[in-house]
């Protein structure tokens, strides 16, 4: 594996992205808006009372952590994978002695650094104004980081194998749109999973979308039992392995199907 080459690619992609920070800040702002809307909806609804055991300030804590986790795990670069396959610009990546996934990972890591320079200050300002409440325990604090990393890997590889379906269908990006919609509904953005109607809650706990965003947020902000914590981590690992297998199968089959359009 060409790790040194991959590291240089990440570094220079980051340098390239830093040339246009305003564009990426605007993108990040756009992605934050839905989360902020739900923050204010629940903030208003929970004024002077608790909903599902959560106070107004606990909702603030939940949604501010959600905004950060969502930005950190959102794989915006998967949207360009299908375009590269469709317009043939994948050709250059395929003839280099480095796996094409490094190019996507490079953009992903570079993007995270640029976006977070915008998102963290915004979250800090909102925290100063709205006074979030968090009650993390030692175990939840320790498990937050692994759950966040697993969430990012799961969201990335799940989106990546879907994007690779562009080898067969030119409009694979529609599937990424479906993934985003299901994440919106079942990953704890509309409401924390515990507040969803019971049938929807059962579905959300089984499907991968909660484990892409909502679960790390719950680890830090909710009072999950030890069993719930480790069940959640097991689901993350299982879905990650599934998405890795799907990625490998689709990538291998897709290369043989690739038509390398364009010059």
């Amino acid at each position, binding site marked *: 594996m*060409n790790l040194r080459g991959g590291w240089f690619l990440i570094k220079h992609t980051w340098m390239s992205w830093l040339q*246009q920070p305003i564009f990426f800040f605007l993108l990040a702002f756009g992605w934050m808006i839905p989360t902020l809307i739900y923050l204010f909806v629940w903030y208003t609804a929970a004024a002077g009372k608790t909903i599902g055991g959560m106070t107004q300030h606990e909702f603030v804590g939940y949604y501010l952590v959600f905004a950060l986790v969502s930005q950190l795990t959102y794989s915006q670069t998967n949207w360009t994978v299908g375009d590269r396959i469709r317009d043939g610009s994948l*050709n*250059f990546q*395929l*003839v*280099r*002695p480095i796996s094409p996934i490094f190019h996507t990972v490079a953009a992903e890591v570079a993007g995270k650094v640029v976006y977070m320079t915008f998102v963290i200050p915004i979250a800090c300002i909102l925290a100063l104004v709205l006074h979030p409440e968090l009650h993390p325990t030692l175990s939840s604090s320790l498990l937050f980081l692994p759950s966040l990393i697993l969430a990012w890997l799961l969201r990335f590889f799940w989106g990546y194998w879907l994007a690779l379906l562009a080898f067969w269908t030119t409009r694979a990006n529609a599937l990424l749109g479906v993934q985003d919609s299901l994440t919106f509904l079942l990953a704890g953005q509309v409401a924390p999973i515990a507040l969803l109607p019971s049938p929807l809650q059962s579905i959300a706990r089984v499907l991968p979308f909660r484990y892409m965003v909502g679960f790390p947020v719950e680890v830090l902000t909710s009072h999950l039992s030890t069993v719930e914590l480790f069940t959640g981590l097991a689901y993350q690992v299982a879905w990650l392995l599934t998405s890795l297998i799907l990625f490998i199968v689709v990538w291998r089959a897709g290369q043989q199907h*690739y038509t390398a359009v364009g*010059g």
Partner: protein
Amino acid sequence: MSIPQIVVRNLSKTYRVPEREAGLIASIQSLWARKYRNVEAVRDISFSIAAGEIVGFLGPNGAGKTTTLKMLSGLLYPTAGEVRVAGFVPWKREPAYLQRISMVFGNKSQVLWDIPPKDSFRVMGEIYHVPLCNLSRMLDELVELLDMHALLAKPVRTLSLGERMKCELVAALLYQPKVLFLDEPTLGLDLSMQQRFRHFIAEYNRLYGATIILTSHYMADIVALCPRVIVINHGSLLYDGSLQKLACQLAPSKVLRLIISDEYTQVNPDLTFPTGVEVLAHEGASWTLSVPQAKVPTVAASLLNNFPIVDLAIEDPPIETVVNQVYQWSPSPHLTGGIDAGTQEEQELFRNENVGVPVTGNSQGGER
């Protein structure tokens, strides 16, 4: 013959493409009953190229040149046939193979758009494991050859097309690839830049002994760089040999340029030429004639005997005319087939890895 660097045997590629009639009804029907058509982009072509050769791929648009190049570079899996490039099966895309090849597309960019090219070159150096001292030396050499010192610190998006092409060439060559696939590399470049490019490629070939396949619609590129050409049309190989021989063998006629004495022309303004001779141009005492190949000696003798000739030149027709004529042909057995089963080295290349695949195809190396 030296050991072949590229060996292609019975290579074919068929694409399955969706198709439908024009109009709304057909577009609605295609939602549940999509029709497909098989398009044979490359049909059973065979050839071999020795290390250090520069070969031009000729053919009209859609002939199968780029598809062939993409199979040779490992971008496409073939439908049938075998290929070895530098001893590797290209579509396995082993890192050791990708380290040895380079592909340049005239209309696509591989350098990062927003940063200066020097940063992109550093990334390429790391991807191709070029030690820093070698990278600096190679970079100095290429920058010198292409005279592009002033471009190194500017963001790529601010460069002109020709300047970007220089950057593409440096990015493609700084790890000293042994096999180069150049697909329309001079597309959109001005005459001066085209000339500089040709000189550069010839120099690279001379210095590093690289094997080069070049496709270009500019015949000047082919004439300047490629002693050997492979002509493909409708996916089939039409000709494999020297460009000069192609012109000599296949041009149906030669061009005779003659100047007759002014005095004679003033007295006899309308000249009568032997049968079969076509007047292409006439101005004053100068005549340009097209003469069938077989009749050239007799016509020339007749002209010298019958007219007071001041100057007579016999030329091949422009290469574009010859090539255009080749494009009109259908594949014919006397041009493409009936060759031996390949040299011993070629057979050895396939024997190593292809158990159960017959090695009986047509191999076309060298001139014919």
